[in-house]
């Protein structure tokens, strides 16, 4: 049986190890020497083999992972953009901003503003549907509040208004 030409799966498996390591610690520095060591590949061959396997050179892959993490932090946390830049592995805010814009087409601040706005897409939903959709939560919140109030000092009949 002729073995068809193609990349050696064992090599790919070792390259995957380098990709996994970048995935789990994208904030760290990943010079080719370090990645090549993880994959047990010569430095000369690493970058090319990695690009053939995963579609992007290792450095660009790392940058996209960092940007991905930064986007998640912009969306899900209140951390400052400076904090996010350093937490995701950049040494300068300027580089972070420039590469972020290169990759995503907008600045970190714009992304944050847009993501936060997108997180509340309710303004496009008619209010009656919105109220219906939220009714169970609202009831829970009210009864919870009543329970708390009952356990506390005074009982209020104030209605919770969305």
């Amino acid at each position: 049986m002729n073995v068809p030409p193609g990349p050696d799966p064992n090599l790919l498996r070792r390259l995957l190890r380098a990709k996994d390591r970048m995935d789990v610690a994208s904030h760290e520095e990943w010079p080719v020497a370090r990645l090549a060591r993880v994959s047990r590949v010569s430095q000369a061959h690493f970058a090319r083999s990695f690009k053939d396997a995963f579609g992007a050179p290792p450095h660009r892959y790392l940058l996209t992972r960092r940007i991905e993490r930064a986007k998640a932090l912009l969306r899900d946390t209140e951390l400052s953009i400076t904090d996010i830049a350093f937490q995701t592995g950049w040494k300068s805010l300027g580089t972070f901003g420039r590469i972020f814009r290169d990759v995503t087409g907008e600045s970190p601040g714009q992304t944050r503003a847009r993501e936060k706005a997108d997180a509340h897409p309710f303004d496009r939903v008619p209010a009656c549907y919105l109220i219906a959709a939220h009714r169970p939560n609202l009831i829970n919140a009210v009864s919870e509040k009543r329970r708390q109030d009952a356990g506390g000092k005074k009982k209020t009949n104030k209605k919770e208004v969305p």
Partner: protein
Amino acid sequence: MSQGVGVVGLYVRDQEEALQFYVEKLGFRVHTDVKNGDYRWLTVQHPGQPSFQLGLYKPGPPTVDAKTAQTLSEIVAKGAMPPLVLVVDDCREAYKGMRARGVEFTQEPVDRYGSVDASFRDPSGNGWKMIEARKVPS
């Protein structure tokens, strides 16, 4: 239970290696191991899940042609197969034991979404998420 999913298979690069991994490192049991020429039907089973078998198959003729087998082997080795999830009672304990047995973890246990999860790969490149079962109040 008589109806439901009985077997789901993984592609592995070497069935003997996969067998050792899933049995010795993960604690699965062999359910069926039948050879017919070059073909080997091999399934393992989680001890807590007798109605389900995990198949460990090597892509190759006669099931697929040699070129397809090569492509499938590449996809597995690149970690591009769909994710797998292993549910455990205690993620950190399981992590400790499996790590000591030489399992390649790609992510240490992390607390999030009200649970604990870690990630590991089998020797072929199949990626597993190991998630701690949420405690159901009794």
